[in-house]
């Protein structure tokens, strides 16, 4: 009996084998139609992307983002609201404020009196854009600028709003915009980092900036923003130690490379090869960085253009000049932060100082890029993380007031990089509180930036912790109306 059972087991003939196998194969094949990843090994989901190459021919090759940290008041700079002056001291109508969430700083305020700009505005350029008298240099280049007056965001405090604008998420730990671009576009100049950060601060009430804003998040660490500081060592740990000359450094690197190469031969780990390359890049940066950072050979015209402060390291003007030099040398993303725009109180005094800090140099950067024939391939952005309220924070006097955070609308401007010049996009209501036309969400803004650089924001993805991540998270649409 046992023998029969055993033989029965063996009598699995060719026909039975084939028919049962075809059933199995068939169901696997069917399944694979519904779950495309079933038969694929590993993550091949970034199909739309070849890191380092744009999806389509880009308008812009590089970005310079002059971030006005602390949120400059649109009412005193670009969003002209004469009605606010008329209604000086009157309570903001509840219909306008609606169910607006307020910050802890004004939530307990008993009254919300409106206040108009202390400074006058004039119209400039072909677009007849309104620019306040605080920004005389910016006013002169209006024909090169595209003002977006209808930006809005989701966060009401600095840290989340900044993080949101830079990384597409309020929580942090995601890659910054510059890191995404570095990942998507690759290096133009292999001797400089792809994403650099420059900091400065004005006299106004300041808010901190911190390295999480230029973090590479889950992207490879080569995409991290490199902060250039103002001191003798703009890039830390780049200088040879005292007593070591360039030849010794060269010899040391050569020997090190040989050793690394040996272990690469043995283990085949690509990280080892990457390490060798990074050492070599640092070696080349030793000459490339001082060359870029050298301000001493800038002509007098350039000094006059940017203003005398441009030769004082660490100032906003100097950072603008450096930004141009870095960008000109192929750095994809130069991020400036200028602190001091958080005018909760004493606004007229502080914003005047802040505007003086940035006006001439910001305009100069646009002019300078233009006169080198670089503006059409460099996207320049100027703006903060949110706007400020139409009502005063704290005590309202005839000549002094403050403004609280306002996420519902704020103004930024862009120039170059295939953005329509001489244009004003979007509109707020006559109290400058709500958007009435063409709202632009932060994700829309980010999608537009990526689009100008030849990247489809829906395809620039990275798989991490089991899902695909994008700069624009799950939303965002390109604002085609401002693209030329």
């Amino acid at each position, binding site marked *: 009996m046992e023998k029969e059972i055993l033989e029965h087991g063996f009598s699995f003939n060719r026909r039975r084998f084939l028919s049962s196998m075809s059933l199995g194969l068939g169901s696997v094949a*069917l399944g*694979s*139609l*519904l779950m*495309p990843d079933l038969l694929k090994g590993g993550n091949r989901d970034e199909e739309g992307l*070849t890191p*380092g*190459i*744009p*999806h*389509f*021919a*880009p308008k812009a*090759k590089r970005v310079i983002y002059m971030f006005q940290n602390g949120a400059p008041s649109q009412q005193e700079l670009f969003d002209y609201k004469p009605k606010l002056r008329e209604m000086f001291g009157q309570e903001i109508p509840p219909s306008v404020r609606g169910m607006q969430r307020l910050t802890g700083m004004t939530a307990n305020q008993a009254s919300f009196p409106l206040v108009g700009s202390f400074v006058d505005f004039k119209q400039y350029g*072909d*677009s007849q854009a309104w620019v306040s008298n605080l920004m005389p240099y910016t006013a002169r280049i209006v024909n090169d600028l595209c003002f977006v007056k209808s930006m809005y965001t989701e966060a009401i405090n600095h840290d989340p709003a900044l993080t949101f604008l830079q990384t597409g998420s309020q929580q942090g730990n995601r890659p910054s915009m510059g890191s995404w671009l570095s990942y998507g576009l*690759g290096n*133009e*100049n*292999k*001797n400089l980092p792809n994403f650099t950060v420059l900091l400065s601060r004005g006299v106004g*009430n*300041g808010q901190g900036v911190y390295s999480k804003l230029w973090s590479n998040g889950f992207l490879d660490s080569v995409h991290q923003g490199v902060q250039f500081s103002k001191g003798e060592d703009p890039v830390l740990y780049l200088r040879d130690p005292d007593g070591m000359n360039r030849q010794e450094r060269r010899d040391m690197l050569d020997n090190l490379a040989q050793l690394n190469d040996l272990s690469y031969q043995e283990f085949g780990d690509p990280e080892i090869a990457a390490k060798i390359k990074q050492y*070599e890049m640092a070696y*080349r940066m030793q*000459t*490339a960085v001082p060359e870029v950072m050298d*301000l*001493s050979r800038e*002509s*007098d*015209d350039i*000094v*006059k*253009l940017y*203003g*005398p*402060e441009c*030769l004082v390291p660490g100032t906003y003007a100097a950072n603008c000049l450096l930004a141009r030099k870095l960008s000109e*040398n*192929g750095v994809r993303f130069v991020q400036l932060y200028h602190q001091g725009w958080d005018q909760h109180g004493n606004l007229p005094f502080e914003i005047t100082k802040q505007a003086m800090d940035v006006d001439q140099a910001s305009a100069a950067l646009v*002019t*300078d890029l*233009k*006169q*080198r*024939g*670089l503006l*059409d391939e460099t996207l320049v952005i100027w703006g903060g993380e949110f706007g400020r309220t139409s009502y005063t924070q704290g005590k309202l006097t005839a000549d002094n007031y403050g403004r609280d955070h306002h996420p519902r609308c704020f103004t930024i401007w862009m120039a170059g990089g295939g953005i*329509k*010049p001489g*244009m004003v996009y979007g509109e707020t209501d006559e109290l400058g509180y709500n958007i009435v036309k063409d709202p632009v969400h932060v994700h829309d803004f980010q999608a537009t930036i990526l*689009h100008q650089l*030849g990247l*489809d924001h829906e395809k620039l993805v990275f798989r991490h912790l089991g899902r695909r991540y994008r700069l624009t998270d799950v939303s965002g649409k*390109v604002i*085609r*109306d401002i*693209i*030329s």
Partner: protein
Amino acid sequence: MHSKFRTFAGQLLIASQIFILFLLLFENKLVIPAWLQTIGRMHPLILHFPIVILLLAMLLEFFSFRPEYAKNPFYRNFLHNLLLAGSLLAAVTVIMGLFLSKEEGYEGEILTYHKWTGVGIFFFASFIYFIRNSSWYKAPVAKAGSLLTVAALVVTGHYGAALTHGMNFIWEPIESTKEAAAVSPDEAIVFTHIVQPILEQKCTSCHNPDKMKGQLSLTDAQSLLKGGKSGKLLVPGNPEISLLLQRIHLPNDEKKHMPPIGKPQLTPQETAILNLWIKDQAKIDKKLASYPENDSLRFLAAAYLRPAGQMEAYDFEPADEDEITALNSDYRTIVPVAKNSPALAVNIYNRATYTSRQLNDLESIRKQVISLNLNKLPVKDADLEIIGKFENLQRLNLNFTEISAGGLKALTGLKNLSSLAISGTKIKYGELSALLPAFKNLKTVSVWNTPLSEPEIAQLQKANGNLAIIGGFKDDGKNMLRLNPPQMKNSSPVFAGTMALQLKHPINGVEIRYTMDGSEPDSVKSPLVSDKMLLTKSENIKAKAFKNGWYGSETVQFDVYKSSLQPDSVQLLAPLNRVHQATGAKTFFDRKLGVIGANNPAWANNWAAVKDNDMILVSEFKKPALISSVGIHYMIEEDTGIFPPETVEVWGGKDAESMKLLSKFQTAMPAKGDKPSLKTMEGKFKPQTVSCLKIVAKPLNKIPEWHKNKGGKALLLVDEMFLN
């Protein structure tokens, strides 16, 4: 045919029916992997077989009940097999077709018709195959069935052909051709080339002379202007009340919304174009080029003519990828301008390593290079000869290179060159004005920082209307700027013996003048700063920067302090305020001064403070020191309750036990509203030799009546002390 095979094939037919049903059911969830796409793409190849076989089978089926054929076993057998083969091939074709339909670019009405008639053929043919042996299957049924199948084959084939060749493929050659050939934005007429195509795409399938829904046709200008059942469509100049846009703007689920739900909708850009066109009086003949350069309609229309993101078409082959990789080096990056684009962008960096070889090496990819950046490299005229062979070059950056007009001549053959940057070169007006007309396609040329003067640039611009000549900023002296103040570069303002004062200014050629008597420095009379100036005592220096073409800087003050004695050890006998620890007892002789500003994060770094107890500092000198004065550097910030010390006592002696009071001194208290400031108070006394020195600074015990914290204790902030 062997009956075994026939049974097997019959089962296969049933299996494929089930499979096709599955595909249709889950159509929306299907994702076709690449290898299946290949199979899908064989659809146009295979489809001809079932068509022919089924046509033949249906012909035979039509006559199969004729007696002479009905009795012929070969006829019957052959027909049965033929039908089976045809149905099976139809199944294969349908499956492939369904795969193919999931690829991009297949959608819309025609596809739907083609798909369902095709699926219909398959099910119908296999249905006939299975029922044709039933008893009720008689000649009329067979004839009707075969006719129907043939009709379906023709219809499916027609729609299939329409999918691949376009709807009007057959009649096109004999119809009048009014097709809009690709038109450049310069020649486009807004109505003909932009508005009409939008209507054709989205509206005319229902509103045409053949199918006038709502008695409206939108195929030409006349009928558009005429309107339909509900009246006129357009109110020129007034898009808001134009029926055309009203219907488009209605919510999607509204019955009157156009195009109806389920049909392709207008994109926001298209709606905007229609809106702007009507706003501008809905003119039929107006050219796009007649709108100003930055007009919204012009922008949108230009984008419509060449949709954003669409790849520029190049008529050259891509370069070999290995070749590109090999040519990339540390100082030369070569990358495709976009994915799948044959065009390359080349950047070369680093003055020191540049040679002509960097360009010569590019010979093998010269056709593909469309953008070349040689900014600030020592490029010579001879190098331009090489660049002259890059026939598809569009952008060339020669800023701050060593080229001249003679070299630029070699570039005039570049037909596609549209942007040329020669800022910072030595090119002259006469040379450039002679050269520019030879560049046919050039759109922008930047000539900033060349010997060209502003009138010359204006002249060039006038002579070359289509070309944007970018001059840039040149200081004409009309907008005088104020210089920034001089900076002190000494590592510390506190010194022991003497100090060479280092006053510097970042701008070249600036004169710094100073005074030390408290008067304002003057651009003529006050002495110039020199490196050799030696300070021997504490001073208050006022300085100002001057340069031709600039306003003088604001006056800036530098206080320098002499502190000739440095104690060997210091000790605090009473605790410091918790948040103002600085570096403890060492704070007072570290030669680092603090700054004003309560919001400055660096604020607390150099400030040591007390509030609830006295500041008691004991210093010891290993070698007895001759001392005659003690200075204390402190902060006043009345608003935040930071006041000067009430009194300072200086005690000294040979050791801690034998100290006696050497001096006790006070200073004036600030008045209400005084600006924050840094001050020094000094107590002088008869020179004494001491080994041990005790300084007691008492914070203000009662803040004056006028202050908001009246009666409270004041904070005392000290950053440095000076012993002489």
